[in-house]
Each structure stands twice: as C-alpha cells, then as structure tokens.
C-alpha cells in the first residue's frame, strides 16, 4: 500500500498540475506575466553579479560621466551624479520586492486567521472582529504610511509596518466571506455530525477550500504594494539615498525633464512593467484555478 500511496499522490498532483498549466498557457498574457516575474526575481536576487556597474548602487560620484544619454555602455543612461541608471534600477527592484514579500508574509497569515475565526464563530466574535477590521480598512494605506514615516524615521521596515496595519483587513474579509458560506456546507455538517472538533473543522475542512482566492489575491497584491512603496519613495519617505529606490529615482529625475528624460522615464517604465507582470500573473492564476470546464 505504501508504494501505491506515493505513486498515487504523485500522479494526482501531476494531474492537477498539468490541468493548471494547460489552462494557464491558454492565455498569452499570463505567460508573459509569468516570464517577466521570474525575470525580475532573478534580476533582483543576483543583482550584484549581473549588473554592469554594481558599485553605482553604493555612494558613488563620477562627474565626468554625468547625465549621459542611453548608449551601449549605459543602457538607460546615467543620472546627474554619473551613476548608471540601469544598474541602479535593477538594485532598486530588491527594495520593491522585499517590501511586497515582507508585507504579504505578515498580512496573509494574520488576516486569514482572523477571518477564519470570525467566519466560523459568528455571533459576537464575528461582529467584534469584523467591525475592528472595518476600522482598519478605512485607513488609507498611503496616508497612514506617510504619517508613520513622518513621525518615525523613513525606512523600508517602517513603511512595511504601515502598509501591514492597513492591509490585513482585506484578507480577513476575503477569508471571512468564504468561511461564512462554507460553514453551512454539507461536508462541514457531516464532519460535525461525526464529532470532529472545532479546530479540525476550521483548519482541515474549511481552510483548504479557501486557498485559491487567497493565492490569487496575493499575486495581485504584490503589484499594489510595490506601487505604494514607489509612491512613498517618490515623496521621499522610502529608503533614503544613496540606496536606489524606484520612486526616488523617478522623483530625482523629474527635475531634469524634459532634457535629460532618461533619468525619470526608465525607472518609471520599470515600475509599470513590474506591476503589470504581477497583475497578468495574478489574472492567469485566477482564471486557471476556476473550476470552469467542459
């Protein structure tokens, strides 16, 4: 039985995976999204090894090469301090992705658990938890982050905390909605009649059915968090120079528009591409996980 056990599990997993891949690959945009996301992640991780001028991400000045337009040596040109914009942009990806991963790693577990508890227990517990989450939902992430950054030092960590505080209710709500409806499903009733305890029902029966929408939302949220991160650094509340950050680069370069357009434009394009690729990926995941089939 043990050998069959393993092969069966593997073949079932392969089956589900193949179906997912097939549905996913129907939509060319999803493929584009996936490829770009993987590309960005690799670039971010291996930045010091890939980039032509890694030193430019640290404090560096080269007045003789300042404000050069895009060329063979400098793909995106150089900025007013002579630093290669391409290299700095790739390094800036790190901050953006770090923020997204950090925020989601905190927000998803906390929000999901709160949603699970509120959804299953109903009554007073549900009301209290959902009203609390409503309050936090009303806080605008960007403004809150600005306020916190203004009071404390503006660092990546503080920005992350600020976004977390206003972001967790979305996951609580999502999970709460699903749990409220699954709570009345027949298979949950069957488990109750058998005599399973609460924890089994919440975590083993209901939660596995909620995962797909959560994963989809996560993929789409990466884009949003990156946008907020870029907005914060645009107004100067992100990672402080000389650490390269996408929003900061756009802000600094905006002073030199339209003559030295490349200083702003390239980082801005990268922001757009980054967010779009995660959106395409998220859409692709959502469409291929949905149960529509012939």
């Amino acid at each position, binding site marked *: 039985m043990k050998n069959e056990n393993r092969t069966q599990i593997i073949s079932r997993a392969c089956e589900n995976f*193949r179906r997912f891949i*097939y*549905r996913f690959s129907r939509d060319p945009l999803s493929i584009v999204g996936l490829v770009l996301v993987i590309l960005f992640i690799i670039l971010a991780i291996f930045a010091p090894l890939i980039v032509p001028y890694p030193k430019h991400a640290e404090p560096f000045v080269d007045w003789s090469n300042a404000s050069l337009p895009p060329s063979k040596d400098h793909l995106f040109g150089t900025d007013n301090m002579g630093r290669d914009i391409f290299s700095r942009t790739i390094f800036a990806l790190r901050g953006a992705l770090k923020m997204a991963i950090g925020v989601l790693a905190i927000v998803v577990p906390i929000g999901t658990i709160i949603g699970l508890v509120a959804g299953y227990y109903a009554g007073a517990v549900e009301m209290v938890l959902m009203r609390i989450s409503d309050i936090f939902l009303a806080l605008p992430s960007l403004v809150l982050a600005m306020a916190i950054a203004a009071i404390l030092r503006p660092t990546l960590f503080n920005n992350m905390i600020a976004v977390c505080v206003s972001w967790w209710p979305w996951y609580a709500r999502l999970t709460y909605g699903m749990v409220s409806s699954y709570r009345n499903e027949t298979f949950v009733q069957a488990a109750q009649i058998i005599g399973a305890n609460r924890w089994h029902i919440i975590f083993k029966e209901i939660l596995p059915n909620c995962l797909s929408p959560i994963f989809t939302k996560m993929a789409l949220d990466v884009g949003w968090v990156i946008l907020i991160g870029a907005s914060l650094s645009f107004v100067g509340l992100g990672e402080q120079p000389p650490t390269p950050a996408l929003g900061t680069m756009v802000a600094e370069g905006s002073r030199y528009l339209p003559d030295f357009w490349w200083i702003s434009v390239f980082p801005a394009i990268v922001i757009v591409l980054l967010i779009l690729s995660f959106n395409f990926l998220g859409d692709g995941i959502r469409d291929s996980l949905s149960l529509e*089939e*012939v």
Partner: protein
Amino acid sequence: MAKNDLLSIENLYLSYRIYKGTLKVLNNVNFEVRQGEKVGLVGETGCGKTTTMKAILRILPEQAIITGEKISFKGVDLINAYEEELQYIRRKEIAMIFQDPTSSLNPVFTIEDQLCDVIKFALIGNNRSLKKPNINLKDIAVQALHNASMPDPVRILSNYPFQLSGGMRQRVCIAMALATERNLLIADEPTTNLDVTIQDQVLRLIKRLVEGKNISLILITHSLGIVREYTDRVYIMYAGSMVEMAETKELFENALHPYTLGLFGSVPKLTGEGISQGIPGSLPDYLNPPRGCRFAPRCSKAMEVCQYGVPPFQEIVPRHYVSCFLYVRRQSNERNPCCQKTH
C-alpha cells in the same frame, strides 16, 4: 428521410477538445421525429441526450466539433446553416424547456417582462427596422399563461420568479415556449426537480398542449415510467449512441437490448418485488472509448465480436430498431459487422 419527418439526425458524431485530448461524446446518433409525434429519449447521466439537443439548436460551446451526415429540420441542413436561418428556427419553429425552472428564469425581471420579451422576439425578431405592428404583447402573455393552466394569470405577470413555486415556474417556462406557434417542443427533463404530484400535473399539461396543436414533442428523461405514459415512440440512448428504438407499447412489452433490460430491472416496482443488482461497471471513458460496442464492457451477454465493431442500428422487428450483435441480421451482401468502421 421519410416525407413527413420534421427533424432528422443521421450518423451524427460529436467531440469536445480538452486538455487531455478529445472526448468522443456522440458516436453515430440516429434520431427522427415526425410531425405531431411524441418521442421519448431515455438515457442516464452522461449518455449525451442534452448534447444531442444542443447540437440540434446549435448552442454548443466552441470546443465542440461536429462531424456527421446530417441534422435536418424541415429540410434545412442545420449543420451548415447560416446564423440567420438558425435564428429563424429558434424563433419560430423549435422551443426548449429545461430541467431547472429556477435557472431558466431571470430572477431580476418580472414574469411579464420575460414573457413579453420572448413573444416579441418570436414575432418580430431582432430586426429593429421593422415598424412596430399592432400587437398587444400583454394579451398574448395572459393567454399563454391561461393555456398553461396558471390560476390568475394577470397577477402572475407582475410577480418575480422567486415568488412562484417550482411547479408554477415550470408552467411559466412552458407558457414562454408555447406562447407563439411552434412545430417542435424539446423538453429536457422538465419535471426532474419537481415534486411527484406537481410532476404529474405538469406532464399532463404538456401532453394536452402538444396534442391540441399537433406539435411534435421530444421528451428527454431518465424515467421509464414517464415515457410509458407520455410518448408514442421511445429511443434508449447509451454513451453517445442510440441502442434501441421502438413504439412505446412495443418497447415495454418486448425490450431487446441488454442495456434496456438492465434499466427495466433496476427500476423499483410498486409491486414490491425487489430491485435487481443494477448494471455493473460505469460509463466508458470518452477519451478512449471502446473500439466496438460501447456497452460491451458492462454487458452480461457480450460476445467476442462486440469488441471489434459497433453493431448497426437495425430494424429487427417492424418499427423496432436495436443496435446489438445478438440481433444483427446477416445478409449475403452485407458487410461483416466485425469489419465495420468505427469513428
């Protein structure tokens, strides 16, 4: 195709393209309905009955591939027809009612809105350039509901679907289908979701209406008891092809195909004589269906020849057709059934 055939399907094959390959769903379907006839189509879940009806009305999803000789309605070839011709047929000739009346009706519109909409489409179509003729849609709607045995039709018109019971919703669907002149009504399991006493009333209503106006009826169901009372002729369908067809009385007295006999055995009888063990096995995998007779893997009377070819749908006794090697007649100039091509 005989002269008074209203609808004729000959040698129809249909497959669906999916990620694993092709589902060969319909495998040589032959089906005909004459004017004024009530034909039953009996089969279990997954045998292809609804797919066949959707093929007639050409409302299949885009992954469907139809091959086959012909689906013709009043002489019009439906497989190759233009969309305008199909629209005309849907408007004026063929109506369909479905199993679940709740999802057949739009919950946010009143009955009047929906009924008048259908009537207007049937009478005028989509052509907006036509001047609005002098028709009172509401009157026609009231008349249609009255014909469908609805008490107090005027009040019903102002109701929403959720305010009506299941039986009443189905009667509204019947009214929508038969509000204007039709030649063919397709009823796809119209009473499966209804209570027994309501089912009885709805079926009697359908029978009365189609007999009164000489409309042909295709009644799709998985209940042999229903076809016994409400049809003239019955087709038994299994895994994408017709396995038996006879006039109703003949079928119930003298069923031939092993699948039909298996079905009869499985039906619980009111006399309390117990139920048979059912039919062993399950439907074939449509991705890799058996090369020969699709019922052979489950058939207690299967012979070797059953694996190699699909038995022809032949007339064994006058007006009684069976697709089974137990009954195949061999004529001297007939091809050996073992070598018969399968799709």
